């Protein structure tokens, strides 16, 4: 069963330009995306800066109100929730952020940091809270004496463990992991990724995993969603998507990922230019100005997500309904059935 389900989710930000705030532009940070995360599963979101992955995380965390579409949690629409149900939702969805140097209050002891969600949300006696904290510390692999120390006494990896313990304090169903290892040392990353996987297996957690390290996302996720300028361009089972991307953007993105071995030779697709401003996205397919396969149709008509070989791809190349022969220029790429 899906823990969380987003349908047509949008977040548009209005910007004012000019001194009188007259000319209003709209940034479509997230524009009609749909996804679902099942219990005990991980959804990985990849994309470059400005693609809307952090806004998506904020929407799921309830830190931003969607301007369109809906989020359903355990089958209930968040919009219609009363205060008590909303409280329950907030407890069930927790977050671990990128920088454990910024996300932990330096003036609080670890004990108080981890206990804070418990103190604000549940009325537990102090002794019980302490017991919970020690259990959580043990769960994330920190010694009990850590409870009485301050964050500065820990290394980056240990701090991230503290942040994970805090996220686990209220026994959440879903944890939003926004770049949880990119601020950590290389030798520590594997520790944290393994811990997250162990916790998932042990507690049946669902993850929304956001990162720009594609190999880490592919390693952690069951399903991957690729975003470009607020839209989902491709989604599918993590390993198949990573191994054989369909959308030209996914293809380019994964080909730009660094090799894991010097003898690994890949065909590199170097995209021209940079991600355009989301304030003024290109017409039609938002990727068409950078796309090596762009056709005249791409500039005019926006492709919708369709199923291609068990995956969802938003690209006219795969629009076989209209019997348009897809033209694939890349050598070595598998031909489209």
């Amino acid at each position, binding site marked *: 069963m899906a823990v969380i389900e987003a349908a047509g989710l949008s977040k548009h930000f209005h910007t004012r330009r000019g001194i009188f705030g007259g000319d209003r532009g709209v940034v479509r940070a997230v524009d009609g995306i749909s996804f679902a995360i099942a219990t005990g599963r991980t959804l990985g979101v990849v994309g*470059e*800066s400005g693609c809307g992955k952090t806004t998506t995380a904020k929407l799921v965390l309830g830190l931003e109100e969607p301007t369109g579409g809906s989020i359903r949690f355990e089958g209930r629409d968040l919009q219609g929730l009363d205060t008590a149900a909303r409280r329950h939702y907030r407890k069930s969805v927790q977050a671990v952020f990128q920088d454990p140097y910024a996300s932990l209050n330096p003036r609080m002891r670890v004990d108080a940091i981890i206990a804070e969600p418990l103190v604000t949300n549940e009325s537990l006696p102090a002794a019980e809270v302490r017991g919970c904290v020690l259990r959580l510390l043990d769960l994330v692999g920190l010694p009990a004496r850590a409870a009485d120390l301050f964050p500065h006494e820990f*290394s980056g*990896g*240990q701090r991230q463990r503290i942040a994970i313990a805090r996220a686990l304090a209220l026994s959440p169903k879903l944890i939003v992991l926004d770049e949880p290892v990119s601020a950590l*040392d*290389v*030798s*520590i*990353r*594997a*520790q944290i*990724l*393994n811990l997250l*996987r162990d916790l998932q297996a042990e507690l049946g957690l669902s993850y929304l995993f956001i990162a*720009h*390290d*594609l*190999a*880490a996302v*592919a*390693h*952690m*996720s069951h399903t991957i969603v690729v975003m470009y300028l607020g839209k989902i361009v491709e989604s599918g089972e*993590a*390993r198949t998507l*990573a*191994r054989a991307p369909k959308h030209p953007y996914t293809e*380019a*993105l*994964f*080909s*730009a*990922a*660094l*090799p*894991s*071995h*010097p*003898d*690994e030779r890949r065909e*590199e697709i*170097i*995209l021209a230019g*940079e*991600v355009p401003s989301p304030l003024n996205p290109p017409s039609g397919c938002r990727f068409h100005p950078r796309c090596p396969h762009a056709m005249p149709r791409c500039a005019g008509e926006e492709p919708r997500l369709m199923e291609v070989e068990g995956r969802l791809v938003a690209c006219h190349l795969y629009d076989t309904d209209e019997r348009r022969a897809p033209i694939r220029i890349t050598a070595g790429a598998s031909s489209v059935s």
Partner: protein
Amino acid sequence: MSNSIPSSASYEPTGQRLPVKTGPLLELENLSTHYVSARGTRVVRAVDHVSLRINAGETLGIVGESGSGKSTLALTIVRVLPPAARIVGGRMLFEGEDLVQKTDDEMRHIRGKRIAMILQDPMASLNPLFTIGDQVAEPMRVHEGVGRATAWNRARDLLKSVRIPSPETRVTQYPHEMSGGMRQRIVGAIGISCEPRLLIADEPTTSLDLTIQAQYLNLLRELQRAHGLALIFITHNLGIVAKMCDQLAVMYAGRVVESGPVSRIFNAPRHPYTEALLNSIPRMSDSAQRLTAIEGQPPDLAALPAGCAFAPRCPRAFGRCREETPPELALGEGRTARCWLAAEASVDAAVIMSPSPQPFPRTRGEGGTRVAGG
């Protein structure tokens, strides 16, 4: 006034610029840089007896975690160390001259001219108050005494060569008007403006998006080929090393624990740290597999354990590792490793240098003689 930069078109490789001299362009011998606290009571050995060499046109990757001394090593080479840092021993032979012995004034003529550096954060390395043209032209005006108009013309060509669209208008703009990828390319243009022999890039792509990173790395490689540049990549990312580098040096706690040709190290690492590091990175192909994590934390450089610094985290450490610091061993094929296991594995391994018995060597160049080469 040298006229090595063609003023019209972008850079073309010419035979004359290719290295003619044989032997290493830069050779570090037993180099040590320590940070000393104000009272001299605390000594952090950020760079400790490092010996490396890089040939002209070659790419050397220096990999390490934060605190491994890789950035201090880069700053040592260009001699822009913070006041607390001292080069306490060793030699840096650059085109045959020892950079350690150079005066500050002599270094100023080398820095930016013969050795250039690209830093991690392009916004911090560009001055927000000066136009792009001024900043790209500055090294040429300072080092080559070129007039403003000529330097600006060259700046336009340089921007073109790093693929900045419409360089004519971009030269008059300011850093805030550029995107992150463009800024980093401008920093690259400044780096190559005086045709250096060696370019040191310290985490040049960390702040860039993936597709922009790929663009930038390819650009660096093209520039390298066109100019016969030697490139030193300081990074924590083994992927960048796999993609870009010929030679690799792995640093741990201020020391080079393993060095050699990249593909050989990736195929058969000789130091347990390198091996663990290679196993800990997730790979695209196998997502079901659990990652092999390296337990524990990197050590505090001010309080290093006795013996091998990696021993407390090493799965294969034995008694000797905790007592005696392993020497740097030459393993053949241009490889070195600082590990007792490597010493046992290859009988013919020759000790390059003995570990320093003194915690704080006072004389420069001490113990820098090579006993045997690989």
